């Protein structure tokens, strides 16, 4: 399977199965379009047939020698497995499925409570379809014990402090992290702690702690003041922007090269979200992420009708990134990052996000759920930190989903970049964890195209 697309003035070909990316000239793009109109795939000998060159040349009204030359190059790439390459991976599926599942990452919902009342919050202002509560240090420690037990020989373990707002339980966080450091030595593990915060409670002490202990800090802000304050008010209704922006800026500065992300959410109310990203940039942030909202609230949800506009915004974002880079002060956008020469192995790319298998969420009371977005939905309760996973049925269901079990993914050019999408989104839109969320897919495909196009710019300079 190949995908031919145009972005930012480039004609680009992605050979899906080999992940080879080719920049082609305009005539080659026209030739490929004719070929793809006829059928999906070609062999190298077939492409070298003089008869094919004659036919295509005639159709394009071009010099047959030129067309033969182009087809010759296409044939060469095909012969070395970088164009029209076959899918050799499906045979690996049983291997991926049979692997004994080890848990390597936990989302600790340390606080089911929040000091903000964001209007799209899937955690329902921290309540997660349930009651408010903070996790005790004791439960947190049990969660780490569980992780050490369930992780087998896996050495790198991840623990994210999430909420609600995790800093409402800062004292417990400190105790849990200290306990984790003890476990590391005892069991030869490495804990990578991270935290997602709305910034309200950031202060010098938290900064110092985070810089010492946290591999990544995700800071939430939605963009321009009016956008942020509409979506992220305090419980009393007043906006949060003025209070949190200086704190977030201070935290980002304090990271001093250590990883952080400033993360925003866009809704149908700010489809011009590149303005918000530009605002982040103007505030001094350089590591950015901006996500479509997950909600079924008709006031904010992204619909079919918004897609064209969002795609245009992503193109605008590519231009903005180019401009800033040319001006010598670039920024990164999480969803446009792609490593064409490295990046994850095919096993990771086909096994999806890991929710319910290698990644679990823990409630303040120690219950285990497949991921933070399933928390509180009783039918997905997996077990608890003391007894481990007891609901094998749910666990099996999550494990059985991979790139090759979803028809839409099989034929999707973005599959090895996407990995099969978000099961929580799929569940919300289709009622099945292996269902489709077509809007999410459309946007993911566009982001993949933009990410590749940015590399094309890079190659022109090099």
């Amino acid at each position: 399977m190949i995908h031919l697309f145009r972005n930012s003035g480039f004609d680009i070909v992605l050979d899906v199965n080999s992940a080879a990316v080719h920049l082609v000239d305009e005539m080659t793009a026209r030739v490929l379009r004719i070929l793809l109109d006829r059928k999906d795939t070609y062999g190298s000998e077939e492409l070298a047939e003089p008869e094919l060159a004659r036919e295509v040349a005639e159709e394009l009204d071009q010099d047959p020698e030129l067309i033969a030359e182009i087809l010759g190059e296409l044939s060469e790439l095909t012969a070395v497995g970088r164009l029209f390459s076959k899918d050799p991976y499906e045979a690996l599926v049983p291997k991926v499925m049979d692997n004994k599942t080890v848990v390597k990452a936990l989302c600790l919902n340390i606080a089911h409570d929040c000091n903000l009342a964001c209007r799209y919050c899937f955690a329902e202002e921290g309540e997660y379809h349930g009651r408010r509560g903070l996790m005790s240090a004791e439960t947190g420690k049990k969660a780490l014990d569980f992780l050490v037990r369930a992780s087998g020989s896996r050495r790198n373990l991840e623990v994210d402090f999430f909420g609600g707002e995790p800093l409402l339980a800062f004292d417990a966080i400190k105790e849990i992290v200290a306990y984790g450091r003890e476990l590391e030595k005892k069991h030869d593990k490495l804990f990578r702690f991270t935290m997602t915060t709305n910034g309200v409670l950031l202060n010098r002490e938290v900064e110092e702690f985070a810089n010492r202990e946290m591999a990544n800090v995700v800071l939430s802000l939605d963009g321009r003041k009016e956008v942020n304050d509409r979506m992220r008010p305090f419980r009393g209704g007043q906006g949060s922007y003025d209070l949190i922006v200086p704190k977030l800026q201070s935290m980002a500065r304090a990271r001093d090269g250590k990883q952080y992300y400033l993360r925003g959410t866009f809704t149908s109310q700010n489809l011009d979200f590149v303005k918000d990203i530009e605002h982040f940039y103007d505030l001094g942030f350089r590591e950015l992420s901006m996500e479509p909202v997950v909600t079924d609230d008709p006031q904010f949800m992204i619909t079919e009708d918004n897609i064209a506009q969002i795609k245009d915004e992503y193109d605008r974002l590519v231009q903005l990134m180019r401009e800033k880079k040319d001006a010598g002060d670039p920024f990164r956008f999480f969803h446009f990052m792609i490593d064409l020469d490295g990046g994850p192995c095919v096993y990771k790319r086909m096994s999806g996000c890991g929710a319910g298998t290698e990644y679990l969420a823990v409630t303040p009371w120690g219950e285990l759920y497949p991921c933070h977005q399933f928390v509180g939905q009783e039918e997905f309760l997996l077990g608890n930190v003391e007894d481990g996973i007891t609901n094998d049925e749910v666990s099996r269901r999550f494990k059985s989903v991979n790139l090759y079990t979803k028809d839409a993914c099989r034929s999707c050019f973005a599959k090895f970049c996407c990995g099969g999408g978000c099961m929580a989104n799929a569940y919300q839109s289709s009622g099945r964890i292996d269902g489709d969320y077509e809007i999410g897919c459309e946007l993911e495909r566009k982001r993949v195209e933009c990410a590749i196009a940015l590399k094309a710019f890079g190659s022109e300079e090099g």
Partner: protein
Amino acid sequence: MKHIKTLNDKTLNMTVKKGGCGECQTSCQSACKTSCTVGNQECENKKR
């Protein structure tokens, strides 16, 4: 080649042999928590 410029050297099939160790970060933990993209994750297998 005159008409085509290939942007990468490695291909995905090269990862079949040595991949799958599982030491890398879980996708959803890294920045967003509402979606999944694996293409932007880093491999942590030094032997690959």
